[in-house]
């Protein structure tokens, strides 16, 4: 899992007042979690995961597009739990259904072949 290390949260780059209407909205609560990660021996700053579908405002997860479902299954073909992907409960529900449908018409594997 890649949460141990702390990605020094890059500031929005553009100076103050730069966060104009461009771009897809700073992901919910961008700079909030954590705080200064400097002091202390092992201070984990867990970056808050945001539901990818919420960021993109997805109202419908299409089971026909295997390439958008693929990141949410494990190597072995299992569906990744929410705690790993950060998907919100509503989208996870839709996602599960979509993945299962995709499996049914061989767009996604049920289990990886050896």
């Amino acid at each position: 899992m890649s949460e141990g290390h702390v990605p020094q949260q890059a500031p929005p780059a553009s100076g103050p007042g730069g966060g104009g209407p461009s771009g897809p909205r700073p992901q919910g609560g961008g700079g909030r979690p954590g705080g200064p990660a400097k002091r202390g021996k092992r201070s984990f700053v867990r970056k808050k995961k945001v539901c990818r579908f919420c960021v993109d405002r997805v109202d419908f997860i299409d089971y026909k597009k295997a390439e958008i479902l693929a990141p949410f299954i494990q190597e072995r073909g299992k569906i990744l739990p929410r705690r790993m992907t950060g998907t919100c409960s509503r989208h996870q529900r839709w996602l599960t259904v979509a993945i299962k449908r995709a499996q049914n018409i061989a767009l996604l594997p049920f289990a990886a072949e050896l």
Partner: protein
Amino acid sequence: MEERQYDLIFICRPDTPEPDIDKIIATVEHAAADKGGKIESVNKWGRKRMAYRVQKLREGYYVYMVLKSTHGEVIKELERRLKVSDPVMKYLTVRVDEELKRQEKFKRHRERRAARRPRKAAPAPAPPVGGEQTAAAV
């Protein structure tokens, strides 16, 4: 009863000649028409690699159609036909109208909200990844 919409996908053996596939599509269309359904669109995805082996084959010829009907009898008949059809290895019918309706609802809701407080300069109108359910081929 209100009209329902279905996705119908079937996979033919990869060695099926094109005319045969067209024939299967035609029979499906006929059978649907007989039972009062109607095929909205047919989309041949062509040969694709399947995620797992089916009938010992790794590839299949995918055909995707959208079907509208007011009663479910059509589906029964179509699935029966696909089952007995030799070149067809696999098929899937999914009722989608309810999800489309839900999608519409969310979209309307969002537009209303955007209209009410237009401080964020209209959230990108283009629905992103998988947001749209068009026949756009994969």
